[in-house]
């Protein structure tokens, strides 16, 4: 690597330095916009005791779900985990710690973490199990709870296009948590469908500036669909 060129040539290189017990923040919503090849590399490396921060945990055989059979995940911070039988089994048996976190709070925890804000107050979760043990404070007559931000040893991100400097463009709702995740990793690794030369992306169209990105790799993607819903043609 030279200068601002973030491109690496193998997934092994992309996830180099990941060891047991690290915290990984992942982009993606359901199976949409997940860094599927980076997840496969984590499985291949076999690291254990990981804390995963991700809105969901994939399905049994795709996405973060593939890290469950070998018990690589020790704890997950997520908002919705309902699509995964092995996940449910490990959670119920206590093998897997789950910190259910409201989706907006999770997004904000990543955003704040990446922005150097250690904690923030929010009305979300007041008076619910989420508020247990958290500082409560009133502002303008309304109660808010203190939520701490999150940073990770690694952040794994899926974008659509990038230039070699790591400037990123996302596509449609595959954007979701990816831009926040990208800011919140000590080492942020991004996989994309296309890498172009610096200058080819219009600076106005860049969603995530390259300053957040440490490593960049071009991959091929299955892009599995979770709920295939259609209307008949001609309507």
């Amino acid at each position: 690597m030279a200068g601002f060129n973030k491109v690496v040539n193998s997934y092994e290189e992309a996830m180099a330095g990941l060891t047991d017990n690290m915290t990984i923040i992942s982009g993606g919503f359901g199976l949409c916009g997940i860094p599927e090849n980076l997840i496969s590399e984590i499985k291949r490396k076999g690291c254990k005791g990981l804390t995963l921060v991700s809105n969901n945990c994939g399905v049994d055989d795709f996405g973060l779900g593939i890290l469950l059979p070998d018990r690589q995940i020790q704890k997950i911070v997520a908002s919705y985990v309902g699509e995964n039988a092995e996940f449910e089994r490990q959670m119920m048996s206590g093998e897997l710690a789950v910190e259910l976190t409201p989706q907006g709070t999770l997004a904000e925890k990543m955003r704040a973490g990446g922005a150097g804000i250690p904690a923030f107050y929010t009305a979300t979760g007041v008076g619910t199990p989420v508020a247990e043990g958290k500082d409560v404070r009133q502002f303008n007559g309304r109660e808010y709870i203190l939520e701490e931000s999150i940073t990770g040893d690694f952040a794994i991100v899926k974008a659509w296009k990038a230039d070699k400097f790591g400037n990123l463009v996302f596509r449609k709702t595959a954007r979701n948590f990816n831009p926040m995740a990208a800011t919140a990793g000590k080492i942020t690794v991004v996989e994309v469908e296309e890498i172009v030369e610096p200058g080819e992306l219009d600076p106005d169209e860049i969603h995530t500036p390259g300053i957040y990105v440490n490593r960049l790799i071009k991959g091929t993607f299955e892009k599995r669909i979770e709920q295939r819903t259609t209307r008949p043609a001609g309507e």
Partner: protein
Amino acid sequence: MALSRDQIAQRVALELQDGYYVNLGIGIPTLVANFVPDGMEVMLQSENGLLGMGQFPTEAEIDADLINAGKQTVTMATGASIFDSAESFAMIRGGHVDLTVLGAFEVDVNGNIASYMIPGKLIKGMGGAMDLVAGADNIIVTMTHASKHGESKLLTNCSLPLTGKGCIKKVLTDLAFIEIKAGKFHLLERAPGVSVEEIVKLTAGELVVPEHVPEMQF
């Protein structure tokens, strides 16, 4: 007769106003989109990061990168915009969404709502529901009035873990349209052919019944 799922959605749709930004939850709330009155413009917000959700795609239009909060493939309406999850919840938590419609397991007289977890049975997570109920002022909860076993879901105190505290003001069930204020349920409308007595019987929390309770109009 108790309302069908479609009829519940149809009645909710009467609460829409031209120019509303609306978030519809999974299940019955999603059906509200089918009953937007002709000539009215409503934009649907999907909390994974889409404002201006369109209809389902044709087989040829399917795009794995374009889904709604229920993870279903969708399309974008004219004038749609795409944004990240922090931006999406800034809209929701900042109170910019005009109407939120979502389902629940239980609601109580203090406006508390339980909708995301049945301890020991169902632990899937709250997704965006806690943010939606905390951030929105105008919320309609849709649910059946009672369980299959005839147990009321309109309670003095919710028995399940809460999704939000003191945030629900309107509930539309298959039997009645109910407002919550000052620690009581207030019966606004009844489903066509459903008697006040039936509603009273299936409402566990204190219910204020005015002298005249109109039938719902569609």
